[in-house]
């Protein structure tokens, strides 16, 4: 089937099935149950894990079909928010690096929406510089024991499993002493505390690990090779965020071009031109994403160029929420209705921070796409235990 035909079929499935509403923020127990039911339908229709290997429950198609579906899905509202971390980051990492046992155990339930995943990388002292993390994993007779704290962990309050990055050696430089694990979020010693974010709701959490036991078979990749594993996850993260895989869609986004054109006064020339600017930026990014999809289909892996798409999306999200609230005027910030514009401007910074900040994206584009000279670094050769990290007074 060619891509256009695939797109058409996906669209007609979406038209028939994707009307269920989304509560993307904190879906609560009912919302999670509805989201799980939807994922089961999606799986049965063949639209979950489109590019994942067939032997682990995927469809065995290419990234191009994956992206084509995601693009069609942007016009709808899919209640897939709680699965976005698993589908976009944890699952693809296991596909690339997991043991056969891990793949057999985890991938199908993830794709069918039976189990929810979170990504446990960031800590209070290590975000952009995630390799500076402190959470310790110590080897025992039958596995590992983990202690430490994670933070900003999206959807962890609903998660069954987590992809956890830990320190396993403090005597070597920071990138060389990390290891990655699959961790059971229901295991004894795991405490999840939702954090109220600037929208007033809880998108993310802080997590405490107190002597949590992890079986040996849950190690992902090799011991002390966690940094390479994390880079794999982060590449998937940027690509999935920019292409919208596992994301909920744009249909009910009140600040996107299609919505704004109906709600603002286009009789005013200044307003018209601002909408034109929004159209230009939205279309420019959409076409770039489509080109990346077509390149992938043709066998060219976008790699670090995904960071350009992620950066552009973060900037577009900020721009459109900013524009929409400015166009609406005072009623955007003092309201009796559901306050969708205020919600958008409150949520807008999330994409510029989560998945790596705009500054970090620019560093990556400069270093890996343009091959510019690196910054002088003080942190690459010092043993971790002698390194300055976190927040200093």
């Amino acid at each position, binding site marked *: 089937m060619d891509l256009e035909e695939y797109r058409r079929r996906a669209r007609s499935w979406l038209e028939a099935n994707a009307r269920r509403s989304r509560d993307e923020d904190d879906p609560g127990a009912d919302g999670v149950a509805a989201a799980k039911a939807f994922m089961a339908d999606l799986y049965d229709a063949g639209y979950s894990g489109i590019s994942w290997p067939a032997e682990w429950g995927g469809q065995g198609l290419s990234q191009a079909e994956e992206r084509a579906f995601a693009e069609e899905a942007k016009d709808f509202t899919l209640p897939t928010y709680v699965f976005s971390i698993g589908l976009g980051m944890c699952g693809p990492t296991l596909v690339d690096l997991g043991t056969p046992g891990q793949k057999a155990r985890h991938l199908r339930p993830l794709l069918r929406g039976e189990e929810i995943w979170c990504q446990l990388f960031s800590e209070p002292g290590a975000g952009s510089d995630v390799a500076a993390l402190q959470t310790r994993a110590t080897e025992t007779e039958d596995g590992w024991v983990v202690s430490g704290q994670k933070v900003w962990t999206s959807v962890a309050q609903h998660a069954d499993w987590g992809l956890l990055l830990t320190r396993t050696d403090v005597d070597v430089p920071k990138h060389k002493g990390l290891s990655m694990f699959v961790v059971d979020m229901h295991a004894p010693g795991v405490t999840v505390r939702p954090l109220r974010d600037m929208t007033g709701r809880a998108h993310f959490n802080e997590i405490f690990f107190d002597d949590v036991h992890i079986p040996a078979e849950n190690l992902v990749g090799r011991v002390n090779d966690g940094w390479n594993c994390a880079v794999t996850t982060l590449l998937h993260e940027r690509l999935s965020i920019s292409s919208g895989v596992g994301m909920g869609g744009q249909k009910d986004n009140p600040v996107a071009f299609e919505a704004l054109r109906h709600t603002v006064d286009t009789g005013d020339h200044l307003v018209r031109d601002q*909408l034109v600017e929004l159209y230009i930026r939205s279309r420019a990014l959409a076409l*770039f994403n489509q080109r990346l999809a077509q390149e992938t289909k043709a066998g060219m892996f976008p790699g670090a160029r995904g960071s350009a798409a992620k950066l552009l999306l973060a900037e577009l999200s900020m721009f459109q929420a900013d524009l929409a609230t400015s166009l609406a005027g005072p009623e955007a910030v003092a309201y009796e209705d559901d306050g969708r514009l205020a919600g958008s401007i409150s949520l807008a910074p999330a994409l510029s921070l989560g998945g790596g900040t705009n500054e970090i994206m*620019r560093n990556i584009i400069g270093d890996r796409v343009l091959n*510019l000279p690196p910054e002088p670094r003080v942190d690459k050769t010092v043993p971790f235990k002698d390194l300055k990290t976190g927040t200093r007074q």
Partner: protein
Amino acid sequence: MNLVLTEEQRELRDTVRSFLVAASPLPDVRRAAESESGYDPAVYRRLNGELGLAGLIVPQEYGGAGAGYAELAIVLEETGAALLPGPFLATALATILLTELGDKELLPDIAAGTTVATVALDGDRALNGAEADVVLMVDGARVRAVRGGGRTPLTTLDPTRRQARVESVAGEAVASSEAGMERVRDLFAVAVAAEQLGVLRASLDAIVAYSRIRVAFGRLIGSYQGVKHKLADMHCKLEQAESIVRNAAWAADEAPGELPLAAALAQAYVGRACFEVARDSLLLHGGIGFTWEHDAHLYYKRAKSDEVLLGPPRIHRARLADLLEL
């Protein structure tokens, strides 16, 4: 929709690129630009002879290669990146017009490279108007081909491309079609955007290369985030500009209904992006960028000239607003 080059298209690009690198490097561009005619006819003889580029989109029955607008865009991107002086773009625009709706009499000589043609873009101002054998003068939906008549060279911002005022003498009617002219104007927008993409790419490449060799405060300047982050943003513009140009060229060949919006977007986005990148490339070079000897100002001036070539940039935004029914 096709946004990725095919194998043959990549070959075409590589052929044109290596030809221009060898036959028309920037020092030669400067020499040619200062010469009597403003370009090197020997380069054009090889471009049109060995590479057959004058006849690229001319149908085979009139002696051309019958290629599509996607191929023309690839070539214009390269001639733009090389800042090739002379009437290449001018003749390409004339060829678009004649291939789409003119009478076909002029095409064989254009394809053979023996006739230099141009289009008077607004009334009587034409790219390479003084050097052209034939000027297509557009009056609403009517087009006539003018030979001879007075040609008054204009002083141009861009030293690598000349313009002239063309005396409106009687000529031979070659086309008359309102809808046809609309499409032709859209195709002009795509052609110019393709050239702009090349200028954008080349000016970004220049500053990326410089930031890998220039040292300040004991470090290569490309290692400073103040420089690196700007270059990253310029790269983002390149990625989007390329996507927009490929889409517009695809629409020109395959999806006529989508062409107007794609073409207006191409001018609105790529024209601005090209100037911004050329500007920042110049600025990031430091003082050397402000000198006549350095090439940064050539990209900068071409970028500004191209941005306003088809009219003040606001007209493309206004057209977008109309097409989107805002």
